[in-house]
Each structure stands twice: as C-alpha cells, then as structure tokens.
C-alpha cells in the first residue's frame, strides 16, 4: 500500500503540465497556505480571540490565582515561560478543529480528485498554524515583559527558547492532525477541547512539582510540556530552570514527531481505502 501511494504522489506532481515537479509541489503548498491566510482575512475576530486568550491565562495566574507557589525567585519569571509552553500545547486544539472541519466538508473530495501534490492540504494547515502560533508567541512575550518578566540571556539564548517553543508546537500540530484524521468526527473536537485542560495543567507550567504530591510530581515531570517549559526558563530568566533540560526539550518533540508525522501522512494518503 505504501509503495502505491508513494508512486502516485510523485506521479501527481509530475503530471501537472510537465513542469518541474518540485516547483509544482511548492506552488501547491503555497496555494494551500494562502487559503488558510485568506480564512484569517475572513475571520479576523476569531484570530484575535485566539491570540488574546493565552494572554488572559497569563494574567489570570499572574494576578488572580497565582503567587509564590514555592518558587525560588519571582513567580512571574517562572510563570511566563510556563504559559508560553502552555499556549503551544493548546494549539493542538485549533489544529484538531481545523482539520476536522475540512474533513467533514465536501471540499476535501475536490482537493483529492485534483492533480495537486499529495499532502498539500496538510502543508497549508501546518504553515497557517505555525504562523498563528508565532504571532501568539510574539504577543505573549510582549505581555510577559509588560507584567514584569525579566530575562537574563543572550540573543542566541532567547532565540533558542523561541525555537524550542515552536518545535514543541510543531509536534503538537502533527499529533493534532493525526487525531483528527483517525477520528474525523466533530465529537472528537469536544473531547480534545476538554482534555487539553487537564493534560496542559498536569505540567510545571503554572506550579512547581515541589508543591504537588510525589506521584503527581513524577507524572508532571514526564509531560513533554514540562520539559519545554523548564528549558525555556533555563534559557531566559533562570527561575525554575534546570541545566541540561534543553536537550530533553529538543529530543522529546522530535520523538513525538517521529511517531506522529509518518502516522498522519499515511493516514491521509490512505483515506481512500
């Protein structure tokens, strides 16, 4: 089966009008990315809400609920990197929603009956979600500085932190695509919308594991979200950081991608079976 789909992928690209297959595939990727960006233009309010929501979480925990929580240093310095990572994790939800919406519309049949590069639909999704997340990050970092986040780092360290966050988001993206392709039903969206909360908060994003029962602390430290949050703390303010966590924050999302990226691709090309 996999050999058949590979053959048809290259064939699909070659077929176009005899042009360079790589150029045609890139053109399809760009067309599908433009489609997602055009959606933003049609729904500016939804995009704005998506960007503002994580800021609300940050403010909520910074002023309303949080405070102290057994942190060595300023809680804001601990909280901001945590909520940045949390924002990346919550991106899973918007990916699942968007892919499910597409799958349940007839438009996916038209895409699949056209001579376009296989998987361009998924590339468009990835590009749009990564852009949205980058925008979210920029706004969140701005909000973080506004409420007193202090970073003691080099430009390289800062960019490294942003890179780790986006890498984590990229892993979440492909988990989201895979989940949506496997379930393909709007009911899944509800389940994911509920489940991202406990899974997101079962991490060190908001509170240190030291403030939790031992068993819970162990679970929390295994959460990939915690590893990214810790590494970002390490690379920025140092509060709550643990040296050596940067590699964990690189390898963990890569491991997730190694599993879910091929699974999602196979699922997508095999939709017809």
């Amino acid at each position, binding site marked *: 089966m996999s050999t058949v789909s590979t053959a048809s992928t290259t064939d699909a690209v070659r077929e176009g009008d005899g042009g360079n297959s790589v150029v045609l595939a890139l053109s399809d990727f760009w067309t599908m990315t433009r489609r997602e960006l055009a959606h933003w233009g049609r*729904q500016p309010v939804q995009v704005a809400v998506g960007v503002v929501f994580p800021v609300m979480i940050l403010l909520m925990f910074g002023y309303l609920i949080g405070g102290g929580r057994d942190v060595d240093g300023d809680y804001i310095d601990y909280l901001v990197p945590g909520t940045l990572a949390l924002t990346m994790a919550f991106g899973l939800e918007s990916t699942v929603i968007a892919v499910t919406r597409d799958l349940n519309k007839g*438009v996916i049949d038209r895409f699949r*009956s*056209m001579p*376009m590069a296989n998987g*361009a639909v998924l590339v468009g999704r990835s590009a749009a979600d990564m852009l949205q997340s980058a925008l979210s990050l920029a706004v969140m970092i701005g909000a973080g500085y506004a409420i007193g986040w202090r970073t003691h780092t080099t430009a390289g360290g800062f960019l490294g932190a942003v890179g780790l966050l986006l890498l984590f988001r990229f892993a979440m993206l492909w988990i989201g695509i895979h989940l949506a392709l496997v379930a393909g039903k709007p009911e899944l969206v509800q389940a994911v919308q509920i489940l991202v909360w406990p899974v997101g908060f079962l991490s060190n994003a908001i509170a240190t594991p030291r403030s939790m029962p031992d068993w819970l602390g162990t679970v929390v430290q295994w959460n990939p979200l915690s590893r990214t949050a810790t590494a970002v703390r390490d690379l920025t303010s140092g509060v709550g950081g643990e040296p050596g966590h940067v590699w964990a924050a690189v390898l963990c999302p890569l491991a997730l991608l190694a599993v879910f990226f091929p699974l999602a691709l196979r699922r997508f090309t095999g939709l017809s079976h």
Partner: protein
Amino acid sequence: MTDAIVVEDVRKRYGEKAALDGLNLRVGRGTVHGLLGPNGSGKTTAVRILTTLLRPDAGRVQVAGCDVLRQAARVRGRIGLLGQHAALDEELGGRQNLEMFGRLHHLGARRARVRADELLDRFGLTDTGGKQVKRYSGGMRRRLDLAASLITEPEVLFLDEPTTGLDPRGRAEVWASVRSLVGGGTTVLLTTQYLEEADQLADRISVVDRGRVIADGTADELKARTGGDRIDVVLRDSGRLGAAVALLPFAAENVSVDTDRRLFSAPVTNRMSALTQVVRALEAAGIEAEDIALRRPTLDEVFLHLTGRSTETAAQKAAAQEAAAQETAAQQTAAQDAARAGEVV
C-alpha cells in the same frame, strides 16, 4: 477510439455489505450517461471509485483511457467532479474558490484569475464573486461547484446527484448548465434518483440496484420496458373507480387503483390522445373527475417492473408518491425556468 469510461466487474465491500457487486459500465466519448438508482444502490461508491477517491476491491476501471489505480494522477488531470455535497471552501468567496482551484490545477496565477472571471461570468455569478460561499443560495452554490469542476474543461465530468436538495428553480439552473456543456464534447456521467432527470439529460441510462446494473438503454427503451408514461385520474366519488377503469379506451393491464385517494393510474402510449380519450369517455359516462394528470413513471414503478420489488417499504410509499406528484408540478415550473436560465449560461 476507446470508451471514455470502462468499468468491468468492479466490487467494493464495506464490512458485510457489498456496495458494488460486479458493476459493469461503458460510456462512449462525448455522451451523457445516467446512473439511475435508489439511495444505497452503489451510485456514489461507483463515482468515488471512478474519481480516484476510493479503491475498488476488485475489477478494472478506466477513465479517459487511463487506469484509475495505476494512473490516478493522470485521471485527476482529466476529470471534473460535482459531488453530492458542495465541494467548496465555504469561508472563502466564489472568486477566491475558483482562483484557488485554478492554481491547484497549475494554471499559474494569471491564468487562474482570468479563468475564474470567465467561469463566474458564464454561470451568472460575477456580481456575487466576492461574497462568502456560505451566504450563497443552494442554486448559486451548485452553479459555483459546477464551475469549479470545469476549470480545466475536463474530458470526463462526474455529476453525483447534482440536483438533490435543490428547489425547482435551482434544479432548472443546473439542468441548463449541464445541457450547455454537452455540445463541447465533454463526456458526462450523471447519477440521479429521478427518472425525469436522467430522461432530460442523458443519452443512455443504466439502472443500478444493489451494486450492479440491472437494465440499461435509452430513456425511451427503458420506459417502453416499464410501461411508459402514466395517466393519473382522481374521481370525485371513489365508488365509481371500477366503472371508470372499465371505460378505459386502451389496454387496461397494469392499472393501479387507490380507493383512499379516489385515484386510478394507467400506462399510456400516446400522451395526448390518451388524455383526450379519457376525458371524453368519463364525460360520456357522467363520471366526474377531480384531477387528471399525465406523468412519467416514478423510479419506484420502474423498479417494481425491473426487480419485482419496491424500492421502499409500504409506509414510505405514500411519501414517495407525494414527492413524485410534486416532481411533476416542479418539472413544469422547471421547464419554464430552464428556458430563462438558458440565457444566463
């Protein structure tokens, strides 16, 4: 020259249920072929296999001279698909949709834009090209959908129940659009639940049941096999139904009588003379008729003839008859609308 569509002994199972059970079909180039059958007969499965969206379990399928399994990409470059549900991006505008599909057909940005404008113009959508598709009416959406299927002037066009769910006006618009294509040499495979639709649009019709073709021929051939057109007469007094049927001036076999609705229905060969003959005979006998209508056989009647079994359960039958009655009324409006819509296309 080979046929545009060749389907040989194609099978597809979903679990225990065979959706296609040895389907055979040949469609000549430049012709319109109707695939007629009730819900669940395998029409959509067949279209999905022909358009490379679904793999058959067994059998051989060729579209435009290419094998759908081994040359799927070639097939995709040569076909257009109008699915049962609008295959459009509802969030985007009509023009945005057509431009996007044009780019994905690798027309390039400029040609995609020109083509989008041409198609919007041709389908009378220029004024609404900027509007989000989700705000379109059913008929407009279907027209845009059809325009999207025609971006590259496909060799073979698949229309899967193109008018299901449309009002008579929308149906007339789609019919007129399809007719305008046929002259251009496009091969069309059309699935439908309405005999009238196949009759209006198709050169040949295959009747599908339980995943296989149980009859095919021209509309006239099929209708001849199923008793042709019918006349329905509703009397004021149900007690006189027997007397009225006895008066019928032509062969009275295959007459159905429905006492509750005070109705009898008989096959006719010559529509106009049958109508005048019945009216005269009833008048002469002093039997008062409340309503007299000529109509095509319903799909259910065709089925009854071909399979000896109804497409529906008894409970659903009344509803189907009612729908058929609305059909006839709708068709009269549709025919008028079609004449007007013809100018649009």
